[in-house]
């Protein structure tokens, strides 16, 4: 029986440490700092290409909005029974995306799934910026933007409150809460890393990081407090994330319009939100990995895990989607049935079928390992899945308003104008711009958590090897004899 230390180590690796392959456990800690701080210095040229393109898109959106503000919402080509359009659809889409950032970081944090550690920071940032983008759509969509604050419950001398019965007020409150708490969660998680930045920066940037790192010294007491705060926030955020999109769905579920008035909407929306969020995390994963040279941290096994999670979310969404159709079909509600038939056969039918294909059929490609580990394919696939989810939101909003309860007001010919498309495009510019700026200014991979991850894996391995060596019987079972 050969039983040297080296051989035991190899065997242990085979037997126990499969998850080791998520990341190379032998990266030096100093190298982690160096690699990630480099992302604040000199990214690849593609960064500037993305940034400038995003800024240009954003300016397109701004000019469309200025035009709409001056002229009235008529330029968006919305009309009287068909009063909501791409704005509301894209609003739901953006707000949905924000859910996966929190899911990934809070839920997986609580479940001790440590492969989240290299990718949670940018997902949280994504959450924050998608919420900002969604909030922008609420404003753009209003007829009188300059009075949006009427929705907020603020004290005033006229004793007027918003109407607390309205789902839109719940919406405004929920989004406000979610935005605030995700921002705090993002910031708290960033403090130890900001301290690293502070220690390495010079000039005015040192002052900024000095202020932001709140005097972090890395003492035991600080770490203990930090852990408690972070876990508490994670526990608080998880139910909040679920409730926020449920509340957004009540905008529709609580209304009387056929096609909106569906009981299963809250879980359906949450599932769709997580689905599209995971897809966008994959997209950003690939973009960041290339732009900032994060190949060593954002590894293929992590991408594969994300893809599996996306597949699961896609199946949940598909199930709930089919439930919606089935309950409408068997619900004996003439109006709802009519609206469903219109979606499948009317002039929105190509988009409706495309949405079903992209949302439910395409994810089956993720069942193949070759697809999951192929970066260009995953980039295209994640964008297509997200496009499908966007279509889903649009197919909820538009066909229903085009084909409501009252036949006289059926309005099948409405098509969004260039102003609507321009503002939708502008929102992508706005999001990308903010996100890219964030990644340039703040470390988009959590340095201290990657170190933690490596430390845990190394110590796990060392411990197991030591156990095996001291217990030869176990080693035999481990297949060393052969």
């Amino acid at each position, binding site marked *: 029986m050969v039983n040297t230390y080296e051989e035991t180590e190899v065997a242990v690796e085979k037997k126990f440490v499969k998850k080791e392959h998520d990341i190379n456990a032998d990266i030096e800690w100093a190298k982690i700092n160096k690699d990630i701080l480099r992302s604040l210095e000199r990214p690849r040229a593609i960064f500037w290409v993305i940034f400038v393109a995003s800024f240009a898109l954003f300016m397109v959106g701004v000019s469309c909005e200025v035009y709409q503000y001056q002229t*009235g919402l008529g330029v968006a080509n919305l009309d009287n029974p068909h009063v909501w359009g791409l704005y509301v659809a894209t609003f739901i889409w953006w707000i949905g995306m924000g859910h996966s950032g929190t899911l990934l970081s809070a839920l997986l944090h609580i479940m001790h799934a440590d492969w989240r550690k290299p990718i949670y920071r940018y997902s949280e940032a994504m959450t924050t910026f998608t919420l900002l983008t969604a909030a922008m759509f609420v404003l753009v969509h*209003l007829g009188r933007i300059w009075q949006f604050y009427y*929705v907020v419950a603020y004290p005033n001398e006229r*004793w007027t409150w*918003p109407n607390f*019965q309205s789902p839109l007020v719940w919406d405004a409150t929920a989004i406000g809460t979610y935005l605030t708490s995700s921002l705090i969660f993002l910031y708290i998680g960033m403090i130890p890393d900001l301290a690293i930045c502070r220690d390495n920066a010079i000039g005015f940037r040192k002052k900024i990081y000095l202020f932001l790192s709140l005097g972090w010294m890395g003492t035991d007491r600080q770490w203990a407090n930090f852990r408690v705060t972070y876990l508490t926030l994670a526990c608080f955020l998880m139910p909040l994330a679920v409730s926020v999109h449920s509340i957004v769905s009540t905008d529709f579920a609580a209304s009387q319009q056929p096609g909106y008035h569906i009981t299963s909407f809250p879980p359906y929306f949450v599932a769709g939100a997580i689905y599209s969020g995971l897809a966008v995390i994959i997209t950003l994963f690939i973009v960041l990995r290339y732009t900032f040279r994060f190949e060593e941290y954002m590894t293929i096994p992590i991408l594969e895990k994300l893809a599996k999670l996306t597949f699961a979310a896609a199946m949940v969404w598909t199930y709930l989607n089919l439930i919606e159709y089935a309950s409408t079909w068997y619900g004996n509600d003439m109006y709802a049935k009519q609206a469903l038939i219109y979606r499948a056969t009317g002039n929105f039918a190509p988009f409706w079928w495309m949405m079903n294909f992209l949302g439910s059929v395409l994810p089956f490609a993720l069942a193949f390992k070759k697809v999951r580990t192929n970066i260009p394919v995953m980039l295209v696939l994640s964008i297509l899945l997200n496009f499908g989810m966007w279509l889903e939101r649009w197919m909820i909003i538009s066909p229903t308003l085009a084909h409501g309860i*009252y036949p006289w007001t059926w309005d099948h010919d*409405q098509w969004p104008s260039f102003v609507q498309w321009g503002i939708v495009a502008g929102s992508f510019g706005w999001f990308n711009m903010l996100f890219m700026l964030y990644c340039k200014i703040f470390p988009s991979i959590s340095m201290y958590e990657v170190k933690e991850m490596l430390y845990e894996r190394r110590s796990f391995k060392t411990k197991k090897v030591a156990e095996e060596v001291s217990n030869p019987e176990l080693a035999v079972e481990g297949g060393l004899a052969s």
Partner: protein
Amino acid sequence: MSITNLLNNWSFYRQKRPFRGQYDLNKQYSEYKWAMALDLDICTGCNACTTACYAENNLPVVGKERYQHGYAMHWIRIERYWDENMGEFPESGTSFLPMMCQQCEEAPCETVCPVGATNHTNDGLNSQNYHRCIGSRYCSVNCPYKVRYFNFWNYPSTAWPSPLQDQLNPDLTVRTKGVMEKCTFCVQRLNEAKSRARTEYRLVKDGEVVPACVQACPTNAITFGNIVDPKSKVAKMWKNQQVDLYKDEQEKDSSMRGYRILEDLRPFPSVMYMERVRDMEA
């Protein structure tokens, strides 16, 4: 602004379906509940009501293109339906249905407005507060009749070129872009009549005040009045047709012509229509 004010009155806020207008804390029953009865048998579809409404309520004329696009601001519209199985155009019969805000007792639009710009008044009207409206258009989404009209354009700047602005009715506002508007049963006339009656220590008499559409109807197809007053013409018509304002399913005689549109959605509309009777043999 006091939090106690909110908390004290919160429990009373829409705790039950409004009865004869809004459920009022001080006096449970309001003296007025405005309602309409509309006889489709008499209606000729002449559009006089729509025209009168445009004149009375400062509605902008939007032009042919915008009309076709769906920007028409007609608070009362004449819907034209071709009868089925009646042959091609000249022979086929038409039915007309004037459609205006149904002033629902349990209005779907009221509950969803985020800022409370649309409310139930004490006399059972569904009011619209233009100054409070922020233009979220949720009310229109939730209205089953789609009788709410949104100002997609800044009509005051184009709809009444000088000297036409002199024809505007000074009793109510001209709405700018970004607010929702709808039929009010000519609330400016109702309020004027109510204050006149109050100064004379009496209630508004039946027929003393009518909305512009009722006034303009050449065939008297529309009857308007206070349904709380059992002697009013409209209350009698509702009673004759066995239509009860507070029922969502009428137990009426099948020979009766009275019905309310989309009653099964339970908005409890205040407008009763009377079916058109057609002699199929002739």
